[in-house]
């Protein structure tokens, strides 16, 4: 079978010593990031992005992906131990994971979470391997109008996820689109919005904006207001779950994996929705609903599986269509562009080693995490005690060096500082920064495809609704927004 041959190619790529090292170098910091308060994978990825420009494209992607799923694995650790989600999507794990820990069953909860992460990750990677080739070959037939529609879906969908007012999130995406137009226009060579400064001729670097918006803003916020930090009142007695735990959690794990894997394919849903959907489902199916919220193991196993499955199947839209399913994917997409890899359906035919190598490395990384996380859980919990005053100087120094090293230009650091100031103000005004980054990275692609669609249709804007696939995507976008703005979904998160 084709898939098996491709997977063999992937493992050949992923099993080289260098790529294994990158996988470990991504998964381990990712785990640390998922545990440490005040460090989100977005901050660390934007901080380390310039480093990946110095290594091979596949190595860099393997590392970034490792940070991403590593943090997803360990995000549940803090949720269980401290009732503090390390990752937004582990909020759901808090509902039942922390009560379990309070009852002295933190060990089994952590163990089941790790096992379900690994199981979900493995199945999701099979999903990625099976579904990417057909989606990619279908997408090869897409033309500019379909791409325009898909980019709009990614922009609107991820904006709608941020749980702020729709006007402010769409406006943030608009700001990002505008920043994305700065620099030389590819079609005409005209310098736009550079104000005569040649340092802006290549456009505003997205790494600088990401570092400013996420790292600098977050640090200023944390130094300004003290947040209630976690208090460890739980103890790990033994890690091994009872037979009963395993018996009652294997079905939720499978259901969660399927839910997460299916929802993850749609760009703009996000792991939080998947894990929440799984939690609701387990609660519905349970015979005794009152146990939920008081330490039901099903409420840990199902959502954790859904979270990790969705986290990995999010790679499908990114690798087949070039559409990021969130900020982290947008940053990875930007990294691919810098390595000269045009994201889109042609990746699979033009760079099969990259695609399959990444898929194989994700499985290996998940295996590493399973082996590492459980024995080292004591160390991860110790890490929680590191005071923020030692962390933020490190983030600042690494961010500044990283931004400077993109093109050895101090001007980029000033851009980052400006983005930090603007980001601080916008965050005070309850605006989510993620849509801005997405708009910034997708902006040039959107403009290019919009122009091309209009050229194909001879200036007829109805082309988007007369072509069936683009109509379908646009309708799906509308439905997604309507569903996501339902009060019952927004209340919880």
């Amino acid at each position, binding site marked *: 079978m084709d898939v098996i041959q491709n997977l063999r190619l992937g493992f050949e790529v992923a099993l080289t010593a260098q790529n294994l090292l990158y996988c470990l170098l991504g998964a381990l910091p990712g785990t640390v990031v998922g545990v440490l308060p005040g460090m989100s994978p977005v901050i660390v990825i934007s901080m380390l992005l310039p480093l990946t420009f110095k290594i091979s494209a596949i190595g860099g992607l393997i590392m970034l992906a490792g940070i991403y799923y590593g943090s997803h694995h360990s995000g549940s650790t803090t949720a269980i131990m401290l009732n503090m989600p390390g990752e937004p999507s582990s909020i759901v794990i808090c509902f039942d994971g922390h009560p379990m820990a309070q009852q002295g069953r933190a060990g089994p909860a952590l163990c089941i979470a790790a096992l379900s992460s690994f199981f979900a990750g493995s199945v999701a990677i099979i999903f990625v391997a099976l579904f990417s080739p057909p989606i990619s070959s279908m997408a090869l037939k897409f033309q500019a109008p379909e791409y325009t529609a898909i980019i709009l879906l990614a922009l609107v969908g991820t904006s709608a996820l941020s749980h702020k007012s729709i*006007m402010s999130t769409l406006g943030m995406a608009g700001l990002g689109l505008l920043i994305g*137009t700065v620099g030389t226009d590819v079609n005409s060579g005209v310098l736009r919005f550079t104000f005569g400064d040649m340092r802006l001729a290549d456009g505003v670097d997205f790494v600088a904006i990401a570092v400013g918006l996420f790292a600098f803003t977050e640090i200023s916020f944390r130094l300004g207001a*003290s947040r209630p930090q976690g208090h460890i009142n739980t103890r790990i007695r033994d890690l091994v779950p009872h037979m009963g735990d395993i018996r009652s959690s294997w079905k939720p794990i499978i259901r969660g994996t399927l839910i997460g894997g299916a929802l993850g394919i749609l760009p703009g849903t996000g792991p939080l929705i998947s894990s929440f959907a799984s939690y609701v489902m387990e609660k519905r199916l349970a015979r005794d609903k009152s146990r939920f919220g008081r330490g039901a193991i099903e409420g840990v196993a199902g959502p954790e599986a859904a979270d990790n499955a969705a986290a990995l199947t999010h790679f499908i839209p990114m690798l087949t269509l070039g559409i990021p399913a969130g900020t982290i994917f947008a940053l990875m997409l930007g990294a691919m562009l810098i390595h000269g890899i045009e994201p889109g359906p042609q990746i699979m035919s033009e760079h099969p080693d990259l695609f399959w190598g990444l898929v194989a490395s994700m499985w290996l990384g998940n295996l590493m995490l399973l082996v590492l996380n459980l024995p080292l859980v004591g160390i991860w919990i110790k890490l929680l*005690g590191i005071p923020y005053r030692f962390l933020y100087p490190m983030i600042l120094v690494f961010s500044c060096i990283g931004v400077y090293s993109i093109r050895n230009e101090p001007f980029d650091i000033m851009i980052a*500082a400006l983005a930090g100031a603007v980001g601080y103000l916008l965050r005070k005004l309850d605006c989510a920064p993620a849509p801005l980054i997405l708009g910034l990275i997708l902006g040039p692609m959107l403009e290019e495809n919009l122009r091309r669609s209009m050229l194909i249709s001879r200036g007829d804007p109805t082309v988007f609704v007369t072509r069936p696939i683009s109509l379908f995507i646009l309708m799906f976008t509308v439905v997604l927004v309507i569903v996501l703005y339902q009060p019952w979904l927004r209340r919880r998160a």
Partner: protein
Amino acid sequence: MDGASVSMNESERPEAGRLRIARGKARLPRWYLAFWHQPAQRRFDRPAAEKRETTGVSMPVRISNPKEFLVGVIFIIVGAGAFLLSQYYEMGSLEQMGPGYFPALVGVMLVGLGIGSVVSGLRTTDTDPIIKLNIEPLALVLAGVLGFAFLVRTAGLVLAIAALIFFACFRRLLSHPVEVVVTYAVLTVFSVLLFVYGVGMVIPIFWWQQ
């Protein structure tokens, strides 16, 4: 290092940030506290944000959600600015879009969203209508970052990191100088080893290495 006793329950002290200032007063110089404790916190309070219509009939327009209102104003300004600046570039037609078309389109969209946000800011109520700006940490972090930007190419990495840490950890430097100096030393050695020798980035370490 309070790693041994991991009781970090600051939720018992709801205003821990403020308390820390009070406790640190003995150590921090008075001029420093006086500098930041000028009215840096602006309040966009309900009475302050009240507007009066110019028709003569005094009808106070109450901005019930100042955050949304301000966001809308920002969007309108940026969108209108983008639209006006785009006029300097060739517009083209819908079929043959010029370089100015897309920014103008986004600008118009942004103005529309801004108007929507302003209207909704006048209508809905926010639970927390007060915007507090605590600019001390932001200003210090950005001062450090800008110091790094100015120094990194001319004076080298060691001095640039010094400037960054000096500003970013200023409060801590006044109270615990040794700790900050040690942090600085460790970070500098680590960055030089990792980025300059390890990854091979072209960054001067000292000013004579340009």
